[in-house]
């Protein structure tokens, strides 16, 4: 019996007892506060106790900490005044970085965590967004449940259609007064951004050429509604076959 055995058994234990509902879990916003190390109040201890004993909260918490840790590393690289000397140890960027790198754990425990986390990853492609009118962070897009549903192209290819008929299409959203279609290459360069009132965007020759040159691209559609909200589709990746073959 050693620490590794204890850790593996503990991880397996919490993985096998993942809660079926999340009513007792801290909210996503609370997880963010905890991940920032900025949580206060009487519940902080019990919330953290829950997170480290909950197979559903833990991956979410780790994801948020990764984002938080990235910011800390950047802050360190750009700051010349950062001092680490303190009687009370603070979470320095280096310790944050150390904390998110993979830790030793027996294979079966990691596998259990992976299985539980895979759903979180898969969800990304299904989510949608809206701009909240009451958003306290200007310019930050908040999400909701009902987004835009893309029709084509999905995993199919544009080139399977006649070039004159190449288009992007999606389902209509109630109350939408216009739609914005965005296409990005895999490095994040915008290939196309067009506004339309239709649910089909026909590509002109130049636009189609840009997408074909990219070969692989991501596209999404935002629906702008009259009430000022914006709803968004998932980001969908399209891979075009090599036309030179």
């Amino acid at each position, binding site marked *: 019996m050693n620490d590794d055995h*204890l850790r593996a058994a503990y991880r397996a234990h919490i993985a096998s007892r993942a809660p079926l509902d999340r009513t007792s879990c801290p909210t996503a916003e609370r997880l*963010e506060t905890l991940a920032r190390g900025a949580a206060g109040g009487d519940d902080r201890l019990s919330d953290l106790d829950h997170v480290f004993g909950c197979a559903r909260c833990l991956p979410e918490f780790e*994801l948020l900490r990764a984002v938080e840790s990235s910011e800390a590393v950047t802050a360190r690289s750009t700051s010349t005044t950062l001092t680490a000397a303190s009687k009370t140890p603070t979470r320095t960027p280096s310790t944050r970085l150390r904390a998110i790198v993979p830790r030793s754990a027996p294979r079966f425990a990691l*596998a259990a965590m992976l299985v539980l986390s895979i759903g979180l990853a*898969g969800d990304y492609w299904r989510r949608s967004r809206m701009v909240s009118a009451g958003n306290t962070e200007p310019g930050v897009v908040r999400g909701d449940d009902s987004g835009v549903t893309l029709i084509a192209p999905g995993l199919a290819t544009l080139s399977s259609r006649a070039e004159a008929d190449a288009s992007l299409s999606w389902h209509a959203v109630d109350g939408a007064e216009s739609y914005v279609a965005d296409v990005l290459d895999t490095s994040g360069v915008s290939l196309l951004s067009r506004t339309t009132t239709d649910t089909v965007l026909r590509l002109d020759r130049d636009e189609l050429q840009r997408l074909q040159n990219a070969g692989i691209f991501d596209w999404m559609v935002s629906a702008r509604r009259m009430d000022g909200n914006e709803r968004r589709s998932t980001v969908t990746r399209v891979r075009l076959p090599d036309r030179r073959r």
Partner: protein
Amino acid sequence: MLSPPLEAALTRLARMIRAVGARHGLLDQDLDALLQDVRIRVWRAHPTGESIAQLPTSYVYRVAMTAAVDLVRKRRREHDREPAIEEAPSAALASRVHTDEAALASDLGDAIARALASMIEARQVVVRMHLIGYERSEMSALLGWSDDKVRNLLYRGLQDLRERLTHAGYRWPEDG
């Protein structure tokens, strides 16, 4: 394309999240989608290249954090609507692995849980964090406690855990 400092921030973000992804099974394409989403959010909020160029890098992280929180919220809402379609079978499969090793680990896991439940909350938290793999400095930062306090709680908590497990029949190498 975002400005070079923002792209650099995004690249750094990608590296950090990939580290977590490797640990928790996030897929590369999902990470790509997250990063693309961050780019689009920034563009939507700042349509002109000039205004984007003036944004501080911290803005990217704030947007990324918002995107990540949205992801968590959305995930939970979907889970509420579709109870346990994806997860329950996985958990069930995991618990049906009838190997000796799994059975022993399961027994040990139960024993650890019982021992944790009997501890005061402060000890419980630090021992849980230790078992997940957190370092003391991380615990200090997240809990807002001094290193001395964390060290003391962890020492006593692990001692307590060990005593209870020993009492339950588990042995450590040095025990012979």
